């Protein structure tokens, strides 16, 4: 456990190094959020009867932009990918440490450290802009539920990310898998439009998938679209998917490692 903790710390410090890059990405997130919100503003002006109110949608989008790196399934683990490509995975296999635990911890830290650097400025900017577009601050209960759900979502993201990395043992170039993964996960996790904007039947099915347990659940809880019993059962579903995905990933990893051939080194 201690070795996982120190690994986590090293990855965190490594990620906090590049401050100039962070300022650029904060600006990007802010502009991106404004554009998304303006689009939804126009949509809400042309119709009623949406499952989410406009101010809920605005909060959803701001939180999504602030935490985007944490919910990112695909793009955060260059070192793991490189270790598969250049054969340095052999060293990691030689460590007296389970590779699944090693990767899973790295995946969590790789997402947490850039988020910690990015999220606060975006959140503050989002709270300062004029009223209907503003990030709303919900009551304390909701915030606590949101934080718990975010931690769970991070674990789901980590577990899916490790599964993606395992598939990379089987392919030479990961680009295709990554593009497909990014599109599918992004869409079903409510990355393009929040799940309540989906047609009802679709939404019922999609919200049961593991992808909805990533960003959708915490963001909907924060924005006030998912409350009370529904919120609790959605978090139960998150726990369920964590258990399933980690168990599955663990066995898939062991199965794969039995036949892995390291070519370089």
């Amino acid at each position, binding site marked *: 456990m201690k070795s996982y903790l120190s690994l986590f710390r090293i990855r965190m410090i490594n990620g906090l190094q590049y401050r100039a890059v962070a300022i650029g990405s904060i600006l990007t997130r802010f502009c991106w959020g404004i554009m998304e919100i303006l689009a939804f503003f126009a949509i809400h002006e042309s119709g009623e009867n949406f499952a989410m109110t406009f101010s809920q949608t605005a909060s959803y989008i701001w939180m999504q932009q602030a935490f985007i790196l944490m919910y990112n399934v695909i793009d955060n683990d260059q070192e793991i990918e490189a270790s598969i490509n250049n054969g340095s995975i052999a060293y990691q296999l030689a460590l007296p440490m389970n590779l699944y635990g090693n990767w899973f911890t790295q995946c969590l830290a790789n997402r947490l450290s850039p988020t910690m650097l990015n999220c606060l400025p975006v959140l503050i900017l989002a709270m300062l802009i004029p009223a209907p577009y503003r990030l709303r601050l919900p009551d304390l209960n909701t915030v606590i539920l949101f934080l718990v759900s975010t931690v769970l979502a991070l674990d789901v993201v980590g577990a899916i990310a490790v599964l993606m990395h395992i598939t990379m043992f089987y392919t*030479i*170039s990961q680009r295709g898998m990554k593009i497909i993964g990014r599109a599918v996960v992004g869409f079903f996790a409510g990355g393009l439009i929040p799940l309540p904007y989906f047609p009802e039947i679709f939404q019922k099915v999609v919200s049961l998938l593991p992808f909805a347990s990533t960003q959708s659940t915490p963001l909907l809880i924060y924005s006030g679209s998912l409350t009370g019993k529904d919120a609790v059962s959605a978090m139960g579903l998150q726990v369920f998917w964590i258990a399933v995905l980690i168990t599955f990933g663990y066995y898939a990893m062991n199965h794969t490692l039995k036949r892995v051939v390291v070519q370089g080194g």
Partner: protein
Amino acid sequence: MKFYIRLFGLNLKSQMRYKFSLFLSCLGQFITAFTSFFSIKFIFMQIDAVGGFTYEQVLLCFSVMTLSFSIGEAVGGGLANFPRMVNIGEFDRILTRPRNLILQVMIPYFDFTRIGLLVQGAIVLGLAIPLSGITWKADKIAGLVLMIICGAILFFCLFMFQASFAFFTMNSLDFLNIFTYGARQFGRYPFSVYGKKILYLLTFCIPLALIQYYPLQFLMDETAHPARMFLPCFSLLFILPCRALFELGIRKYKSAGS
């Protein structure tokens, strides 16, 4: 010229080496565009129009942007590697060769997988053309073609604009992604939807609205003067500042060493 064709051919061959991987990438591009399409469809299942534009007109807009972007990115997306080339000193090697600089950076990274995006764009365009309710006379067809061609050139310029900053920052400026990848994402709705200020910004600073909102209005307007079909051509003025920035970068360039 022969040299460039050879370079292009070599790149094609090397990408074809891993056929399955190439196929997966194309498929991925296709799925990406497909999810964007559904995000429009789902919204329009609940409303009739956004900012005065119907579903069919938005689809037309979306497909034009997808097509322009896929062509522009297939050609110019490789310029995203430019900051890295400057950073590790590879650009010095290119400077020593008596050939066109931009082409040397671009051709080895020409991305054939964008064909997946192109196909998706073409399908949606094929759907939108008959549905849009526009009477397709010669001037409207020419207008549509000009939108796509000028759009592709504009997207290419934006990638070059972004890459040129590497001369000054030695690193990639991800902020400018908002005008490339962001334009693809937000360009699915006509830019007037985002309000007057954004529309002005995208008319006079980064002329994205000139290949999207204004020509779209021309297509929808039965009585519009045929000369308005040349509107997208004004966006090509953006080539000038891009070119100037690149030239300035070359003149100021100091090697980062290798």
